[in-house]
Protein backbone atom coordinates (compact mmCIF):
# COMPACT_ATOMS: atom_id res chain seq x y z
CA UNK A 1 0.00 0.00 0.00
CA UNK A 2 2.78 2.39 0.99
CA UNK A 3 4.65 1.60 -2.21
CA UNK A 4 1.53 2.29 -4.22
CA UNK A 5 1.00 5.67 -2.53
CA UNK A 6 4.67 6.56 -2.98
CA UNK A 7 4.62 5.61 -6.65
CA UNK A 8 1.51 7.69 -7.24
CA UNK A 9 3.06 10.65 -5.43
CA UNK A 10 6.22 10.46 -7.52
CA UNK A 11 4.17 10.13 -10.70
CA UNK A 12 2.02 13.15 -9.85
CA UNK A 13 5.10 15.16 -8.92
CA UNK A 14 6.74 14.30 -12.23
CA UNK A 15 3.65 15.42 -14.13
CA UNK A 16 3.61 18.65 -12.14
CA UNK A 17 7.25 19.32 -12.95
CA UNK A 18 6.72 18.61 -16.64
CA UNK A 19 3.78 21.04 -16.69
CA UNK A 20 5.86 23.64 -14.89
CA UNK A 21 8.69 23.16 -17.38
CA UNK A 22 6.28 23.66 -20.28
CA UNK A 23 4.98 26.88 -18.74
CA UNK A 24 8.52 28.16 -18.24
CA UNK A 25 9.42 27.22 -21.82
CA UNK A 26 6.41 29.17 -23.05
CA UNK A 27 7.48 32.11 -20.95
CA UNK A 28 11.03 31.84 -22.26
CA UNK A 29 9.86 31.57 -25.85
CA UNK A 30 10.50 35.23 -26.60
CA UNK A 31 14.05 34.79 -25.26
CA UNK A 32 14.91 31.67 -27.23
CA UNK A 33 18.29 31.81 -28.94
CA UNK A 34 19.43 35.17 -27.50
CA UNK A 35 17.21 37.21 -29.81
CA UNK A 36 17.66 40.74 -31.10
CA UNK A 37 14.53 42.84 -31.44
CA UNK A 38 13.95 46.13 -33.16
CA UNK A 39 12.01 48.63 -31.16
CA UNK A 40 9.46 50.65 -33.10
CA UNK A 41 7.35 53.53 -31.91
CA UNK A 42 3.62 53.36 -32.43
CA UNK A 43 2.73 54.97 -35.77
CA UNK A 44 -0.31 56.62 -34.20
CA UNK A 45 0.73 59.82 -32.41
CA UNK A 46 -2.20 59.58 -30.00
CA UNK A 47 -1.09 56.18 -28.80
CA UNK A 48 2.39 57.52 -28.19
CA UNK A 49 1.14 60.53 -26.29
CA UNK A 50 -1.16 58.38 -24.17
CA UNK A 51 1.76 56.26 -23.07
CA UNK A 52 1.42 53.10 -25.13
CA UNK A 53 4.54 50.97 -25.12
CA UNK A 54 6.77 50.67 -28.13
CA UNK A 55 6.54 47.48 -30.17
CA UNK A 56 9.10 44.70 -30.47
CA UNK A 57 9.76 43.63 -34.05
CA UNK A 58 11.93 40.84 -35.33
CA UNK A 59 12.83 42.77 -38.49
CA UNK A 60 14.13 46.27 -38.91
CA UNK A 61 11.23 48.69 -39.38
CA UNK A 62 11.31 51.21 -42.22
CA UNK A 63 12.72 54.60 -41.39
CA UNK A 64 10.13 56.99 -40.03
CA UNK A 65 9.99 60.42 -41.59
CA UNK A 66 9.85 62.86 -38.74
CA UNK A 67 7.79 65.86 -39.54
CA UNK A 68 6.34 68.23 -37.02
CA UNK A 69 5.28 67.09 -33.61
CA UNK A 70 2.05 67.15 -31.77
CA UNK A 71 2.05 70.17 -29.46
CA UNK A 72 0.22 70.03 -26.15
CA UNK A 73 -1.35 73.40 -25.40
CA UNK A 74 -3.26 72.63 -22.23
CA UNK A 75 -3.64 69.69 -19.83
CA UNK A 76 -6.46 69.30 -17.34
CA UNK A 77 -6.34 66.43 -14.87
CA UNK A 78 -8.83 65.25 -12.28
CA UNK A 79 -8.16 62.63 -9.65
CA UNK A 80 -11.64 61.38 -8.81
CA UNK A 81 -12.74 60.27 -11.30
CA UNK A 82 -9.34 59.94 -12.96
CA UNK A 83 -9.55 61.88 -16.21
CA UNK A 84 -7.22 63.82 -18.38
CA UNK A 85 -8.16 66.39 -21.00
CA UNK A 86 -5.56 67.56 -23.43
CA UNK A 87 -5.80 70.45 -25.85
CA UNK A 88 -3.37 69.89 -28.70
CA UNK A 89 -2.18 71.62 -31.82
CA UNK A 90 -1.86 69.23 -34.76
CA UNK A 91 -1.08 71.85 -37.35
CA UNK A 92 2.59 70.99 -37.23
CA UNK A 93 2.02 67.40 -38.30
Amino acid at each position, binding site marked *: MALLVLSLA*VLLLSRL*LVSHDLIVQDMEGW*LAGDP*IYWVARRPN*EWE*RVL*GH*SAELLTVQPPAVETGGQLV*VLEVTRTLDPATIEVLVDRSGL
Partner: protein
Amino acid sequence: METPARTARGFTLVELLVVVVLSSGIMLLGMWSWRPQQHAILELRDRTQVVGELRLAVENLLQDLGGAHKLTISGTTLHIEREEATATLAGGWDGSADEGVEYWRDDDDLWRLDVASGRVRLVASRLTAFDVGKNGKRISIDLSAGEGDAERNLGLRWRNP
Protein backbone atom coordinates in the same frame (compact mmCIF):
# COMPACT_ATOMS: atom_id res chain seq x y z
CA MET B 1 -2.55 -30.36 33.20
CA GLU B 2 -3.71 -27.73 30.72
CA THR B 3 -1.88 -24.53 29.84
CA PRO B 4 -3.95 -21.46 29.11
CA ALA B 5 -4.44 -20.78 25.40
CA ARG B 6 -2.23 -17.99 24.06
CA THR B 7 -4.22 -15.11 22.71
CA ALA B 8 -2.96 -13.67 19.38
CA ARG B 9 -2.92 -9.97 20.18
CA GLY B 10 -0.31 -7.34 19.03
CA PHE B 11 2.81 -7.92 16.97
CA THR B 12 5.92 -9.82 17.75
CA LEU B 13 9.27 -8.07 18.00
CA VAL B 14 10.39 -9.63 14.71
CA GLU B 15 7.30 -8.33 12.90
CA LEU B 16 7.89 -4.80 14.21
CA LEU B 17 11.53 -4.92 13.16
CA VAL B 18 10.55 -6.01 9.66
CA VAL B 19 8.08 -3.11 9.40
CA VAL B 20 10.69 -0.62 10.62
CA VAL B 21 13.26 -1.89 8.12
CA LEU B 22 10.76 -1.80 5.25
CA SER B 23 9.56 1.70 6.18
CA SER B 24 13.14 2.94 6.35
CA GLY B 25 13.82 1.46 2.92
CA ILE B 26 10.76 3.16 1.45
CA MET B 27 11.71 6.50 3.01
CA LEU B 28 15.25 6.25 1.66
CA LEU B 29 13.88 5.40 -1.76
CA GLY B 30 11.58 8.43 -1.60
CA MET B 31 14.40 10.75 -0.57
CA TRP B 32 16.67 9.35 -3.25
CA SER B 33 14.03 9.88 -5.93
CA TRP B 34 13.30 13.42 -4.67
CA ARG B 35 16.86 14.75 -4.96
CA PRO B 36 16.93 15.24 -8.75
CA GLN B 37 13.45 16.77 -8.60
CA GLN B 38 14.66 19.25 -6.01
CA HIS B 39 17.57 20.22 -8.25
CA ALA B 40 15.17 20.68 -11.16
CA ILE B 41 12.90 22.86 -9.05
CA LEU B 42 15.82 25.11 -8.03
CA GLU B 43 16.95 25.38 -11.63
CA LEU B 44 13.45 26.26 -12.78
CA ARG B 45 13.19 28.88 -10.07
CA ASP B 46 16.44 30.48 -11.26
CA ARG B 47 15.32 30.45 -14.88
CA THR B 48 11.94 31.93 -13.98
CA GLN B 49 13.55 34.71 -11.98
CA VAL B 50 15.98 35.53 -14.78
CA VAL B 51 13.22 35.67 -17.38
CA GLY B 52 11.06 37.75 -15.06
CA GLU B 53 13.81 40.30 -14.43
CA LEU B 54 14.59 40.59 -18.14
CA ARG B 55 10.89 41.00 -18.84
CA LEU B 56 10.66 43.79 -16.26
CA ALA B 57 13.63 45.59 -17.80
CA VAL B 58 12.30 45.28 -21.34
CA GLU B 59 8.74 46.31 -20.45
CA ASN B 60 10.00 49.42 -18.65
CA LEU B 61 12.23 50.36 -21.57
CA LEU B 62 9.40 49.81 -24.04
CA GLN B 63 7.11 52.00 -21.96
CA ASP B 64 9.56 54.88 -22.19
CA LEU B 65 10.49 54.19 -25.80
CA GLY B 66 6.83 54.34 -26.81
CA GLY B 67 6.93 58.13 -26.70
CA ALA B 68 10.65 58.53 -27.32
CA HIS B 69 12.08 60.95 -29.82
CA LYS B 70 15.79 60.34 -29.57
CA LEU B 71 18.22 58.19 -27.59
CA THR B 72 21.66 59.28 -26.52
CA ILE B 73 24.41 57.53 -24.61
CA SER B 74 26.64 58.95 -21.95
CA GLY B 75 29.18 56.40 -20.79
CA THR B 76 27.09 53.44 -19.69
CA THR B 77 23.93 55.50 -19.22
CA LEU B 78 21.08 55.51 -21.69
CA HIS B 79 19.26 58.81 -22.03
CA ILE B 80 15.78 58.83 -23.55
CA GLU B 81 14.50 62.12 -24.90
CA ARG B 82 10.76 62.05 -25.39
CA GLU B 83 8.53 63.77 -27.88
CA GLU B 84 7.26 67.15 -26.84
CA ALA B 85 3.68 66.03 -26.20
CA THR B 86 4.71 62.96 -24.22
CA ALA B 87 7.24 64.95 -22.23
CA THR B 88 4.72 67.70 -21.53
CA LEU B 89 2.21 65.19 -20.17
CA ALA B 90 4.92 63.56 -18.07
CA GLY B 91 6.01 66.93 -16.72
CA GLY B 92 9.45 66.74 -18.31
CA TRP B 93 9.19 69.47 -20.95
CA ASP B 94 11.12 72.56 -19.88
CA GLY B 95 9.86 74.79 -22.69
CA SER B 96 12.49 73.93 -25.26
CA ALA B 97 13.52 70.31 -24.70
CA ASP B 98 12.73 67.19 -22.71
CA GLU B 99 14.86 66.59 -19.68
CA GLY B 100 14.28 62.93 -20.34
CA VAL B 101 14.67 59.61 -18.62
CA GLU B 102 17.90 57.78 -17.84
CA TYR B 103 18.70 54.09 -17.40
CA TRP B 104 21.88 52.65 -15.97
CA ARG B 105 23.09 49.49 -14.25
CA ASP B 106 24.69 49.43 -10.83
CA ASP B 107 25.54 46.26 -8.89
CA ASP B 108 23.39 44.00 -11.10
CA ASP B 109 20.43 46.35 -10.67
CA LEU B 110 18.89 48.42 -13.43
CA TRP B 111 17.83 51.90 -12.35
CA ARG B 112 15.61 54.53 -13.93
CA LEU B 113 15.79 58.26 -13.29
CA ASP B 114 13.11 60.73 -14.29
CA VAL B 115 15.37 63.76 -14.63
CA ALA B 116 12.63 66.38 -14.29
CA SER B 117 11.21 65.04 -11.05
CA GLY B 118 14.44 63.52 -9.75
CA ARG B 119 12.65 60.24 -8.99
CA VAL B 120 14.86 57.18 -9.09
CA ARG B 121 13.45 53.68 -9.01
CA LEU B 122 14.70 50.16 -9.30
CA VAL B 123 13.60 48.57 -12.55
CA ALA B 124 15.10 45.07 -12.42
CA SER B 125 17.64 43.02 -10.53
CA ARG B 126 20.11 40.24 -11.31
CA LEU B 127 21.11 41.84 -14.61
CA THR B 128 24.68 40.85 -15.46
CA ALA B 129 24.91 43.25 -18.38
CA PHE B 130 23.29 46.44 -19.65
CA ASP B 131 25.49 47.46 -22.55
CA VAL B 132 24.52 50.44 -24.63
CA GLY B 133 26.22 51.39 -27.88
CA LYS B 134 25.83 53.71 -30.82
CA ASN B 135 26.57 53.08 -34.47
CA GLY B 136 25.50 56.05 -36.55
CA LYS B 137 21.79 56.48 -35.96
CA ARG B 138 21.47 53.00 -34.53
CA ILE B 139 21.38 52.52 -30.79
CA SER B 140 21.92 49.06 -29.35
CA ILE B 141 20.90 47.93 -25.89
CA ASP B 142 22.13 44.50 -24.84
CA LEU B 143 20.76 42.92 -21.71
CA SER B 144 21.92 39.78 -19.91
CA ALA B 145 20.67 38.09 -16.78
CA GLY B 146 21.49 34.96 -14.85
CA GLU B 147 24.55 32.77 -14.87
CA GLY B 148 25.47 29.37 -16.23
CA ASP B 149 22.59 27.41 -17.72
CA ALA B 150 20.13 30.07 -16.57
CA GLU B 151 21.87 32.88 -18.47
CA ARG B 152 19.69 34.68 -21.00
CA ASN B 153 20.63 37.48 -23.39
CA LEU B 154 18.50 39.92 -25.29
CA GLY B 155 19.32 42.73 -27.70
CA LEU B 156 17.21 45.78 -28.47
CA ARG B 157 17.84 48.01 -31.48
CA TRP B 158 16.57 51.51 -32.01
CA ARG B 159 17.04 53.92 -34.87
CA ASN B 160 17.20 57.63 -34.12
CA PRO B 161 15.47 59.98 -36.57
